[in-house]
């Protein structure tokens, strides 16, 4: 990638050739197969893909909370500000986790401890990372509650006294309490309805600007990506198949899988009876097809797709694709 010409320090986070497998009962599940990505400060990257494509695994690997066993990181580097998180000793990693990188979880209903007051749960992360007194942590937690639009006098209420949208706000408050440099938002709005979705995304966006935080937004909602990301990586079977700026990807998608994704979105302007789905199912990650893992479902599949590996190609500046269909001089 042309990125290699740049120094890694230009980026807040660089992931290189990340490979993660899960082993269970003898079977090996290839969840992430050589993913590389870069994020600048204040930049938003969308990770788009089907359920099971490995999006969440990538996020958990970055945060270092993959359950081991069964998960194992086979290969790769995760570089945050010149230090490889995978090689950091546990003690150093503690300073990163929750402080520099934090995560918004998918389901606010289960991401909060039902027996602790919401305020205490926000104060906990502050207490763990900053050397402050309990009182100061409580004040900070109240500030965070106000910041996400919940009155501070609800500090001592329990999670079940909040609605889903408000719980997600609390989760966001926890994630942002220590002014992280990178926010991993794992489908932050999937469990919420559409109007609350918009509210929550607006809030995340506003807070992000205020704190100058970068974000990796994991989602399967292309609309959400269009709204709030700068760059997009489309993931299929644990691999990035297309990587481009949002504008490039939406106006000029090139990978057959991305084309298929756009084909399955209903359009307001044209009247169609049936959407065009991508035929077939996502491959079994225990048994990935040889060659390009998308070839069994691809209508443009050629012989060369069935064997060997595909290289990342730059079809236009900063627009990369993993496909044999595109021939360009710049193979990276």
């Amino acid at each position: 990638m042309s990125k290699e010409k740049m120094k890694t320090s230009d980026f807040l986070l660089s992931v290189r050739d990340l490979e993660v497998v899960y082993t269970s009962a003898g079977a090996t599940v290839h969840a992430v197969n050589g993913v590389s990505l870069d994020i600048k400060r204040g930049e938003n990257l969308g990770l788009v893909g089907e359920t099971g494509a490995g999006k969440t695994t990538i996020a958990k690997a970055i945060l270092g909370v993959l359950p081991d066993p069964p998960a194992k990181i086979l290969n790769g580097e995760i570089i945050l500000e010149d230090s490889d998180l995978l090689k950091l000793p546990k003690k150093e990693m503690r300073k990163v986790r929750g402080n520099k990188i934090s995560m918004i979880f998918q389901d606010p209903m289960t991401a909060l401890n039902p027996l602790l007051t919401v305020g205490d749960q926000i104060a906990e992360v502050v207490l763990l990372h900053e050397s402050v007194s309990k009182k100061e942590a409580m004040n900070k937690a109240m500030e965070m509650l106000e910041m996400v639009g919940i009155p501070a006098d609800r500090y001592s209420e329990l999670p079940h006294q909040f609605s889903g949208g408000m719980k997600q706000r609390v989760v966001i408050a926890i994630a942002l309490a220590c002014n992280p440099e990178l926010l991993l938002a794992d489908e932050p709005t999937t469990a919420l309805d559409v109007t609350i979705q918009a509210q929550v995304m607006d809030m995340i966006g506003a807070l992000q600007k205020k704190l100058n935080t970068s974000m990796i937004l994991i989602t399967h909602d292309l609309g959400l990506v269009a709204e709030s990301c700068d760059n997009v990586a489309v993931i299929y079977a644990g691999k990035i198949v297309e990587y481009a700026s949002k504008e490039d990807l939406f106006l000029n998608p090139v990978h057959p899988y991305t084309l298929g994704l756009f084909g399955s979105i209903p359009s307001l302007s044209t009247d169609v009876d049936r959407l065009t789905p991508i035929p077939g199912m996502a491959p079994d990650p225990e048994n990935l097809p040889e060659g390009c893992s998308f070839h069994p479902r691809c209508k443009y599949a050629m012989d060369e797709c069935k064997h060997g590996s595909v290289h990342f190609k730059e079809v236009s500046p900063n627009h990369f694709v993993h496909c044999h269909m595109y021939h360009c001089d710049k193979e990276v």
Partner: protein
Amino acid sequence: MNLQKERKALSRQPAKRQSMTVMTLRRMKKNKMAMVGLIILTFIMLVAIFGPLIAPYSYTETDLLHTYGLPSLLHPFGTDELGRDILSRMIIGSRASLSIGFVSMAGASVIGIMFGSICGYFGGKVDTVIMRFMDILQALPPLIMAITICAALGPGLNNCIVAITISNIPSFVRMTRASVLNIRRMEYLEAATAINCSTSRIIVKHILPNALSPLIVQLTMGIATSIISASAMSFLGLGVQPPDAEWGAMLSAGRSYIRNYPHMVTFAGVTIMITVLSLNMLGDGLRDALDPKLKN
């Protein structure tokens, strides 16, 4: 502007905080059965604590002229085969019976919860080793196990407590382990790891409070059953030794005279029953009160 300031000032006020215990107690107040259980239990415990002060006679004082006395004004519960006042013996005996129940359950629950949470949280080899050991302990029924231990250590109050403690550990380990395994899958634990809680903090602060409600219920019910096992052990002559009083021992001593003097066993038996019943009612109430979602 003023209004905004006022609102801000209002919201800045430290919100009123209620601890888990206060909330649980408040919810339990509404449960009549639980309150009756609690009142009876408190009464029995007060009697045990102030036993020597309220007992009308000494529990060892014999009166061979008035043996097998029926209940009367002088001896409300009657006298036994040596003419000792049964009421006084029951009051003093409550100390042994209750301490067996509470101490052995406290010991069994602390040890059991510790091993259980280790098993549930870490899994793997540690889990297998501890659980197989628990299987060995559980291969014998708890009472037989307690009798075996008591027979090995020799009879007496302290050994009796040790025996009942050991025989009750496996059920606590199993229960905690199941609870922890269940909670371990929850996303809020992943969230706790993500904000970087240490393992011990996760177990103590996030897992145990959530795993506790079935355990507290098990604890209250366990006190009841261990009082019964203690009675059984005393009945078999392995528990408290004469002339010390204990409800089960009194039951055991009175059984030979049940045909002619039923009062000798009745009072001890009924007291055990009431204690166990009140503990069970309390345990049932606690189970409901401990669920934060049923608040109010």
